[in-house]
């Protein structure tokens, strides 16, 4: 029996999420226009909203399911195997955590039922060189680029470096948006603000920088969980490809050079899986989030993920350069994950600062 990856968190929710992710992937890969893909993403967003994914971590008294981290982890595991191109970590964990920290109950309820589709902007969101970053001083000015977003965002949730949390409808006067698809097929938005007035009740909270840092780490953890799942699926699919493909009258799987490469991918995968499973256990058990474990896991995801992505491309030969192969779409997902919730350099800096 060839290798099958076992999920970090299994169960019904995992199975359901996996099924949904694979369906979405099949539909999306049959579409070539970015606009059609965006419309398809909206349908799948509505589907997972209907299934209550975004309500998972929202407290029951705020209209949610009152679940815990392992419930969302199961969803992320399943979604990760199919590379579901929706912002699972942000929508199911990071945003609800910030709204809860700000006691924004009404908004939480809307998030839980899926009617509010929030684009979350974290403090050091990307900007183009030379362009003015987003600044809040009574009004909002400047811009950010490439921020992951749900389809048809309704609100912007902005966490400032000073620890404020602002919530604005995207149709507020002075806000313009520009949508793109990322390399992994998810949606991203560039936001530009010019003289955007912020009413006092749109400042949901102040002094919550600690919560923001914690929420980001939760996001990083969920990204690692998704990444591990994607990598497991990539290894399975690489083995299947090598077993089927014949060159020089023998299956590629019979060449030791390639078998060893798959073994190396597997070692990287297992190492990361162990680290992420540990971080998840610690996160579930401890009061304080184990940020060091998460930072190490995210650091490794960057290294191991890239190795696994590059290797699967290489071993697929020309097919590895095409979007038509599921393993290659997953590879792009893993490549993108490096840039979410702090890249290797971000994680390394905080680990080094702490050690100093």
């Amino acid at each position, binding site marked *: 029996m060839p290798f099958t990856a076992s999920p970090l968190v299994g169960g019904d929710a995992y199975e359901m999420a996996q099924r949904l992710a694979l369906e979405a992937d099949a539909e999306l890969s049959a579409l070539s226009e970015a606009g059609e893909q965006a419309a398809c993403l909206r349908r799948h967003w509505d589907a997972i909203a209907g299934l209550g994914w975004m309500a998972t971590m929202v407290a029951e008294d705020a209209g949610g399911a009152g679940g815990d981290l392992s419930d969302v982890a199961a969803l992320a595991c399943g979604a990760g195997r199919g590379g579901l191109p929706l912002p699972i970590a942000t929508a199911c964990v990071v945003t609800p955590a910030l709204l809860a920290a700000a006691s924004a109950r009404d908004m939480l309820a809307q998030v839980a039922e899926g009617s509010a589709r929030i684009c979350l902007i974290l403090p050091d969101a990307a900007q183009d060189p030379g362009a003015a970053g987003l600044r809040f001083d009574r009004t909002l000015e400047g811009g950010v680029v490439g921020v992951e977003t749900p389809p048809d965002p309704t609100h912007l949730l902005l966490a400032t470096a000073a620890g404020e949390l602002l919530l604005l409808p995207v149709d507020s006067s002075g806000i313009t948006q520009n949508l793109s698809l990322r390399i992994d097929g998810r949606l991203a938005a560039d936001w530009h603000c010019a003289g955007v007035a912020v009413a006092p009740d749109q400042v949901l909270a102040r002094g919550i920088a600690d919560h923001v840092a914690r929420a980001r780490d939760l996001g990083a953890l969920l990204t690692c969980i998704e990444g591990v799942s994607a990598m497991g699926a990539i290894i399975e699919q690489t083995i299947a490809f090598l077993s089927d493909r014949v060159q020089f009258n023998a299956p590629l799987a019979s060449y030791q050079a390639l078998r060893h490469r798959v073994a190396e991918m597997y070692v990287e995968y297992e190492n990361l899986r162990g680290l992420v499973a540990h971080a998840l256990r610690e996160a579930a058990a401890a009061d304080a989030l184990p940020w060091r474990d998460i930072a190490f896991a995210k650091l490794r995801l960057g290294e191991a993920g890239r190795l696994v992505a590059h290797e699967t491309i290489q071993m697929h030969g020309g097919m590895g350069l095409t979007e038509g192969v599921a393993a290659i779409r997953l590879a792009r997902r893993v490549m993108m994950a490096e840039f979410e919730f702090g890249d290797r350099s971000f994680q*390394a800096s905080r680990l080094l600062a702490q050690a100093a």
Partner: protein
Amino acid sequence: MEVDYAAFRREVTEFARTRCPPEIRAVVATYRKLSRKIWQPWQQILHAHGWGAPSWPKRFGGTGWDPQQRHIFDEVMAENDCPPQYHHGLRHIGPVIIEFGTPEQQARFLPGILSGEDWWCQGYSEPGAGSDLASLRTAARREGDDYIVDGQKTWTSHAHESDWMYTLVRTAKEAKKQQGITMLLIPLDSPGITIRPIRTIDGWHHVNEVFLDKVRVPVANRIGEEGEGWTYGKFLLERERLGGANVAPALKNLERTRELVAQELTGETHRAKRAALELRLLLAEAELRGALALGKEAVAAVMEGRPLGLLPSVLKLSTSVTHQHVAEVAMDAVGERLAPRFRRIDGSGPNAEAPGIEWVQNYMYMRVRTIYGGSSEVQKNVIAKQLFGS
């Protein structure tokens, strides 16, 4: 006659700087996709100057330069962001036609290649025949003065903008699969040909599937003897063995990436990341300097008629991987702001409104370096076989 190589280098440099149009150099300098629209006018300029075919003998309109001069020419072009000459006509099929073509074929095909009027592509690979090219199955059977060709080629670069495809087809089933292969030159507007684009992860359109359904090809378009196509195909590949000796494009790439890192990661916030990426670039540079030195040795060997041995494989293996490392550094520098903006929602191509998106495309595309032109695994098999003597 003694060649003054320093003077030659100055002459070529002067030409590159003054005669290559800035808009063409800008395409190369920003990694935008090179297409026939860019290449063709450049070839016309070179041709008008008498430099259309640096690697061809004079009697066919070539420059008659020696390998050292050709190497200098390629190097200077890369240093000055001039496009490398379109290879399929000039470097691949041209020399084959010169060596094995009939006088009629030479008169018919070489002038169009030289002037840049005719565009060629290579139809070798098939869905079932990649690394193991000799297992190709596209079949040609003789019918009077024609061959009837049936089958499928794939990964055919530039087929969508080419006039002609040189291809290897099977004309007989022999015990040894390298036998029974024939080389045909096929006009791409022949009835029965369908060209379909393949979507690649970098968002550029290079490769295609080419379907051949009862395509009639005159026997006059056959190169050499029926069944001897493998020999001509190998000749073609061997002519290219010095290609890896030109490390200039990789060095240029490195320099550009270094500028990117400096522009992208400014100030105190990015200090640590900048230093880390600069270190990776320095390590890549060290490798490239080694390759540069080896490249010079390879050119010298060819000049003196000594065998190249494993040098071409060594150069191909190491520079392709270094190219990839450099592209990864660029991706790490821009990934957070550009990888999310790959395609615009209202368009199907890459996002022209995200300045620098080519860095992301290039990172994806660079993965092909270790796959085409003899994959890394194939090169390692070649090297190991020689090292072990079996």
